[in-house]
């Protein structure tokens, strides 16, 4: 069992920050942990969460409450049944500048990535897309871990009004980036990959996981080199290799 440090903290509407005692676990940006919601067999399956950060033996995750399972986890106290960190994360290749594009809870892994890239000397521009200001979380961390931080909201209640990909398009037209990283809803990532043009782009997929460690083959996605299990071959993939139209 993994000890929860403090109580889950509401960091935005329906979004909770959990800090977990990870002992001497090692991780990389883009990796995830899975947590069993509550006790007993309903809900049954573990829920996957990308790491928002991992430092000093503490793993941070952002839980968006979408149903009963995530609701239980957002109200947890004491100890949690956690597995991981697991999965293949983002590549941390040296690049002069990187553009990080996130949507909603999908921004979470980009925070850990931003900190790692910035620490390695990459210039980091982070775009946080949300439907409304109330859903934007952890602005201070994103600001600290990037060089430029921009918020977009669909309803214009914070930052730039409109979608995060429309701002991405503007930035790409004005400036050159060496690498693009993206995590969020499928439709957003599809657009981001199109906009990336020739720039290398990595995406972290968020499809439905069964086991989360490779035995059930339930999370398979279609790629240009055949079907891949998102949990073990990903969740981070070369954006151009994923046939995003096949994702639900």
């Amino acid at each position, binding site marked *: 069992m993994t000890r929860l440090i403090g109580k889950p903290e509401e960091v935005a509407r329906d979004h909770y920050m959990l800090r977990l005692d990870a002992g001497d676990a090692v991780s990389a940006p883009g990796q995830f942990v899975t947590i069993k919601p509550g006790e007993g067999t309903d809900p049954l*399956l573990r829920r996957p969460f990308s790491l928002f950060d991992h430092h000093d033996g503490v793993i941070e995750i952002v839980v968006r409450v979408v149903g009963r399972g995530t609701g239980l986890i957002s109200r947890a106290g004491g100890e949690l049944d956690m597995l991981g960190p697991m999965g293949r994360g983002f590549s941390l290749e040296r690049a002069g500048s990187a553009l990080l594009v996130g949507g909603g809870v999908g921004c979470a892994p980009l925070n850990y990535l931003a900190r790692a890239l910035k620490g390695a000397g990459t210039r980091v521009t982070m775009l946080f897309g949300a439907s409304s200001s109330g859903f934007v979380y952890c602005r201070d961390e994103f600001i600290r871990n990037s060089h430029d931080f921009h918020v977009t909201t669909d309803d214009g209640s914070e930052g730039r009004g409109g979608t995060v990909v429309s701002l991405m398009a503007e930035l790409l037209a004005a400036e050159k980036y060496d690498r693009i990283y993206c995590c969020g809803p499928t439709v957003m990532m599809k657009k981001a990959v199109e906009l990336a043009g020739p720039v290398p782009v990595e995406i972290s997929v968020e499809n*439905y996981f069964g086991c989360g460690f490779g035995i059930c083959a339930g999370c398979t996605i279609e790629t240009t080199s055949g*079907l891949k299990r998102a949990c073990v071959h990903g969740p981070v993939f070369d954006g151009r290799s994923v046939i995003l139209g096949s994702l639900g």
Partner: protein
Amino acid sequence: MDLSVKIGNLLLKNPVTLASGTSGYGEELSAFIRLSDIGAIFTKGLSLEPRQGNRGNRIMETPSGVLNSIGLENVGLECFLREKMPFLVKQGATVIPNVAGHSIEENVELCKTLSRTPGVAAVELNVSCPNVKEGGIAFGTSMPVFTELVSKVRTVTGIPLIIKLSPNVADPGEFALRAQEIGADAVSAVNTFLGMKIDVKKGRPHFLNKVAGLSGPAIRPMAVRVVYQIYERINIPIIGMGGIFELEDMLEFLMAGAAAVSLGTVTMVHPGRSAELLGGLADYMKKNSMTDLSRLTGMAHRPE
């Protein structure tokens, strides 16, 4: 304490096994358990050629259960023999490949080759696959087709043959009895129950294949019932499965008549549970002064 289980001329070291479909080829689970500790591993349903499996949604949680429509994705016989078997043998695992051909000929070919493969302890025939030549009806739901398949496979299988029964028939006991008459060494009971999910936002079935297999604690009472009924009809061992999560669940299957049990869905949630339950069973028997597993098997059938 004797925990061993005899299946034909094969002696499993203990009755806790890993079910096919939720164990892969043991690679992932070997990070959580020692494969040599458990009774056997039933590997992913195998076909002659690699199969990609189904497109679209493949898995979803239901109340205390899981619906799956994986579509028997597997690496194919050649890769299994070349890459997967050596790993399993090196781990000291007792390997029982699950055979999931889509025609009688394919199943015969698979069993013939596997019977001659060193390290393969037995084969488990999955009769819930669609019989492609007969319009996709599962082998295990038509008695004449089932009889033909099991007979032909038995002839070429020189090692213990286990038939994994479908629960999606009126009387699984009839099929178990037929398997015994043909000379099967054991039956596995049961495979997943057919289920379905409608996506109400789209007004469409959630899975492209429309129906899907339901597993997990949701099916446990039905699976225990099937094992109990089959036990009254046959003398060969039953490998019981269907939603085992805790020691008590395992004891239910044993007392209903299972000689061994398989863990499936639970492994997805708790990858180390097989080893834990094996320890739990040994403790239980010790506490109850049982030295032989056969005391437990079928206990619920015996007069008080």
